[in-house]
């Protein structure tokens, strides 16, 4: 098996809390695995073990063929880590941080300095390079965090919630940066609690809950697991005939809103479905204001797999 990041049966508890409960994962060379889960699902613990910061109670993990416990130093030589709990130095400038990390990773002084300049330019931090990190905005800080994990051009990268807490503009910018990394051939494991982020960046998505993997596949595969699409029709005026007219095209019961204007039903998504629905309703003399066929979102997937939506979780986390 040519997995660059590989974990088998990872277990970890903190007192009475089970953080990981037999987690398996594998990331092939050059791929991005998105590990998706809510707060407390075990994402950060998994990253800490894979990056040698924590030891598993049982199970094993290898990164680029090196055991994360017994060959921790060899693992540290090939990984780059961006994690919320392993951060850059607030009191140093951006440049000083990058040079320091380069030196501690074994680069010569001059090489480390040249690399720092290069990374600052690449991450649009050239002007802020000599300012203390304290004075950086959240987005700048995350970009520097990411730059710091790239100093030695490591072939394996771990990004633990790289956009949590960022405003939408900074997030999109960060996504662009992350896509660029993979274009360079790195293998990447990324954790996130945002479904759109996993959808946007990852080749494959591993959904974890309570320290265990509950599903894995491409975004498209996960979406098909939860079944089909959903049809929503808004009528101009309530009409008792509408439900009957829709029946041949839907794959389940039609639900009407209280005022009878909005109808919803599960459908099997086929080409031309919306056209046929509009035509059928028109033939029945029913006028409509709106027709929509919704593809399942990863939110639906998450709900189907865990029994709660991502919004629920934010409420729980808050």
């Amino acid at each position: 098996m040519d997995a660059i990041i590989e974990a088998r049966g990872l277990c970890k508890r903190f007192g009475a809390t089970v953080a990981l409960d037999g987690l398996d994962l594998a990331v092939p060379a050059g791929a991005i695995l998105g590990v998706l889960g809510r707060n407390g699902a075990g994402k950060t613990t998994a990253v800490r073990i894979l990056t040698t910061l924590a030891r598993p109670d049982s199970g094993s993990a290898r990164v680029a063929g090196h055991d994360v416990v017994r060959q921790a130093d060899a693992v540290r030589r090939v990984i780059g880590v961006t994690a919320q709990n392993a951060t850059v130095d607030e009191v140093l400038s951006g440049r000083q941080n990058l040079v320091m990390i380069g030196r501690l990773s074994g680069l010569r002084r001059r090489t480390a300095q040249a690399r720092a300049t290069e990374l600052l330019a690449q991450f649009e931090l050239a002007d802020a390079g000599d300012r203390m990190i304290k004075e950086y905005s959240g987005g700048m800080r995350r970009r520097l965090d990411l730059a710091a994990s790239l100093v030695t051009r490591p072939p394996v990268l771990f990004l633990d919630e790289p956009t949590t807490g960022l405003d939408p503009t900074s997030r999109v910018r960060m996504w662009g940066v992350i896509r660029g990394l993979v274009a360079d051939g790195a293998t990447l494991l990324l954790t996130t609690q945002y479904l759109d982020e996993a959808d946007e960046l990852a080749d494959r998505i591993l959904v974890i809950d309570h320290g265990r993997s509950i599903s894995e596949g491409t975004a498209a595969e996960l979406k098909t697991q939860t079944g089909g699409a959903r049809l929503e029709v808004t009528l101009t005026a309530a009409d008792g005939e509408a439900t009957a007219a829709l029946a041949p095209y839907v794959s389940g019961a039609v639900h009407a809103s209280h005022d009878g204007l909005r109808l919803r039903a599960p459908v099997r998504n086929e080409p031309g479905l919306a056209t046929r629905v509009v035509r059928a309703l028109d033939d029945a003399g029913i006028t409509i204001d709106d027709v929509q066929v919704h593809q399942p979102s990863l939110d639906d997937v998450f709900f189907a797999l865990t029994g709660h939506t991502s919004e629920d979780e934010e409420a729980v986390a808050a």
Partner: protein
Amino acid sequence: MRTMVRDVSVLTFRNLVHIRREPLQLSDVTVQPVLFTLLFTYVFGAGVVLPNHGSYNAFAIAGLLALNLTTSSMGTAVGLSTDLASGAIDRFRTLPIWRPAVLAGRSLADLLTAALCATIVALSGLAIGWRPENGIPRMLAGFGLFLFFSYAVSWYCACLGILSRGPESAQGLGLIVLFPLAFVSNAMVPTQHMPAVLRFVADWNPVSAVTAAARELWGNPNPSATIAAWPMQHPVAASLVWSVGMLLLFAPLAAFLYRRRTTD
């Protein structure tokens, strides 16, 4: 070996940048020594009469060094616990560095800072009339004892820093232990007039030993010389014994505590 030296020197430099940029830590070793020197010599100096009527200013400088070095070693505790709490140390741990470099870099930076502090105290002392009377080698020996002592205390502070939950509690813990240690001693006043219990503590206090040793080496007034307690009769030896003892106890302990705190 080369990587060990490199890792330690990179981290030492990093810690020095921290001290330079943190106003509180920097003033601990620059402004405070000058302030203490002026306060103690001008405010207390007039009221303290030495048993053999020596100059208080000449007496006070060794004590001020002890006071400043002991209290500023708290920076080790605060710095280390800040790094542990902020995740800076986790970042270092994802790099292929020599593991003890984090602690070694911290204690080396503190030693260099202590040397700066000692220089400032000495210059303030020279300005108010203190003189090392026994020549350059003995003067340097006195400072050497002080820096060695300060290095040993910084390992004790490293233990505090690792054990505390955050920078504030590290500071609090440090104050509770280091202030009595610095003041229940012969540093600023002769111990002769202290109540019996305090006097016993003061005469066996490592701060007293190193202070008396420096006074002896510098030819400054040293009222402790007439005290029968062994450390006051042999202050140089006593100061070395204390410093070596603290180092042997607290350096391995700090390494052990650090390993335990960063293994989960």
